[in-house]
């Protein structure tokens, strides 16, 4: 174990579908006390809520079983505590399932805490949804879920109660990492500077592989060694919040000033005011120093008092999307793709479809016409058509018409792929903090 004045925290996942092997590697080989799995993107919880309502799943992270089976034995043996938002739309079921897995594996005495209370569907109707800075009204029956971004507090409470595994629903990502630091070092809720520094560490770790060279490599410009075996990061945090970010020797990837700076600025707006439920963190004066190979020291974050409101992620039904794609290659590929587009445009000219959109993949589908230079004819082009409709059957018209291009369209089309899916839109709202009451339920394996 590390010395008394530092706490080691590892990042075991940066999103719901993340790779599991690097987390196992961290648990097995790193000298960590906590392993944190961040698994909830904006829309993940809404999709989990929908599939729970439709009895398609219990509503927690679909990889919970696989992850827990992979890391529980080693974490139990090394007394590594696990913290995760894998509870998604049903933290209690996720906690119960974790206890069941522990028992199956013959691991007795693991205390698993489930945190509930982020679900604020019952009160959300009273608050305006924000869209583009202006209020928006959505028919209540279209709202599927509303979950408040909860801070570190309930996790700290669960850890104080002796939990070995803490499973939450919607929690602000950095709070998952800040909580064990508050717990271990007894940081005070008014010590904004230190909470800001802890939030910096959480923000750095929350995307796991994005700190060790994932989403960074650019051959010839930013080369990353052994990306295929990318290791996940962990932080060695001292009691006042100074931290060294590092990874296990021999794993792929790298930790440098550049990888840390990219991740610190990732998804933040004003670097001096990163708003979380715990603190308004200030990263503008952060100092990033390389202190060894794959060892970067981060210090100097600040903070101001947390806001009185909590952000709520509100998921609403937003119709269905029908999509189809088809490829053309060889001489005249572009002309044939354009002809196919014009045909589809005529055949899909129907009032049940809205927002009909076409893309020529390989030409300008990503950066748009203005920013995509044309250097001669592309050898192959893939036409993509997509539209929104109120019902699934109408949305299906798009993939059906794309497929029909095989026998009713230009020559040489191939490789049709299609899908029709429900679209769930996410809006934000702010609610007073005192409307959110979290409860912790603990069970022992």
């Amino acid at each position: 174990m590390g010395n008394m004045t530092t706490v080691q925290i590892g990042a075991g996942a940066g999103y719901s579908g993340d790779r599991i092997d690097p987390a196992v590697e961290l648990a097995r080989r790193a000298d960590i006390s906590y392993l944190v799995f961040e698994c909830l993107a904006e829309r993940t919880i809404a999709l989990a809520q929908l599939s729970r309502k439709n009895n398609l799943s219990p509503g927690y992270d679909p990889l919970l079983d696989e992850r827990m089976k992979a890391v529980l034995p080693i974490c139990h043996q090394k007394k590594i505590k696990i913290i995760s938002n894998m509870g998604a739309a049903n933290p209690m079921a996720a906690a119960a399932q974790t206890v069941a897995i522990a028992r199956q594996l013959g691991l007795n005495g693991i205390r698993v805490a489930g945190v509930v209370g982020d679900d604020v569907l019952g009160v959300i109707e009273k608050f305006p949804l924000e869209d583009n800075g202006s209020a928006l009204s959505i028919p209540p029956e279209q709202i599927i879920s509303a979950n408040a971004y909860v801070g570190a507090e309930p996790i700290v409470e669960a850890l104080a109660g002796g939990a070995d595994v803490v499973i939450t629903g919607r929690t602000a990502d950095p709070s998952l990492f800040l909580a064990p630091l508050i717990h271990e070092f007894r940081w005070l809720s008014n010590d904004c500077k230190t909470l800001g520094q802890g939030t910096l560490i959480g923000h750095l770790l929350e995307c796991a592989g994005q700190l060790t060279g994932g989403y960074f490599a650019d051959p010839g410009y930013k080369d990353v060694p052994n990306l295929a075996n990318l290791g996940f990061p962990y932080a060695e945090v001292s009691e006042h919040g100074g931290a060294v970010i590092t990874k296990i020797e021999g794993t792929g990837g790298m930790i440098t000033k550049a990888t840390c700076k990219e991740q610190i600025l990732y998804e933040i707006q004003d670097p001096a005011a990163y708003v979380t439920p715990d603190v308004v963190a200030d990263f503008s004066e952060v100092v990033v120093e390389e202190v060894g190979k794959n060892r970067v020291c981060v210090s100097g974050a600040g903070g101001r008092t947390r806001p009185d409101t909590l952000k709520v992620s509100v998921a609403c039904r937003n119709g269905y999307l029908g999509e189809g794609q088809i490829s053309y290659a060889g001489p005249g590929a572009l002309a044939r793709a354009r002809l196919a587009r014009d045909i589809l445009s005529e055949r899909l000219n129907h009032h049940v479809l809205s927002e009909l959109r076409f893309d020529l993949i390989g030409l300008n589908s990503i950066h748009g016409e203005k920013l995509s230079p044309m250097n001669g004819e592309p050898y192959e082009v893939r036409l993509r058509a997509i539209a929104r409709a109120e019902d699934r059957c109408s949305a299906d018209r798009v993939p059906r018409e794309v497929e029909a291009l095989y026998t009713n369209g230009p020559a040489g089309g191939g490789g049709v792929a299609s899908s029709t899916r429900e679209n769930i839109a996410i809006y934000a709202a702010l609610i007073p903090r005192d409307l959110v009451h979290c409860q912790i339920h603990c069970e022992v394996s």
Partner: protein
Amino acid sequence: MLLRDIAHSRTGDKGNLLTISLIAYHEEDYPLLETEVTAERVSSQFSDFIDRPVIRYCVPRFAALNFVLHRPSSESVTRSLALDAHGKCLGYALLNLEI
């Protein structure tokens, strides 16, 4: 030269906001970024994607700039029909700027 020769970038998203960082490889190039890559210039580069002017934050400690792009409400991650609904590929359109 292209911005890509002296700086790197990562794009993130929050609803209909896009954030694009621009970080100098060498600290001595930071003043050049600050002078050349103005909010106006970035707004004009991304005029097809945004519905209000780009906001720029300067982070001299990191030799970096951070841009916030405001997309129309139909173009949020969860609603957009674009192939890259997040807009995560856009950072490389910034690195493609000639300076």
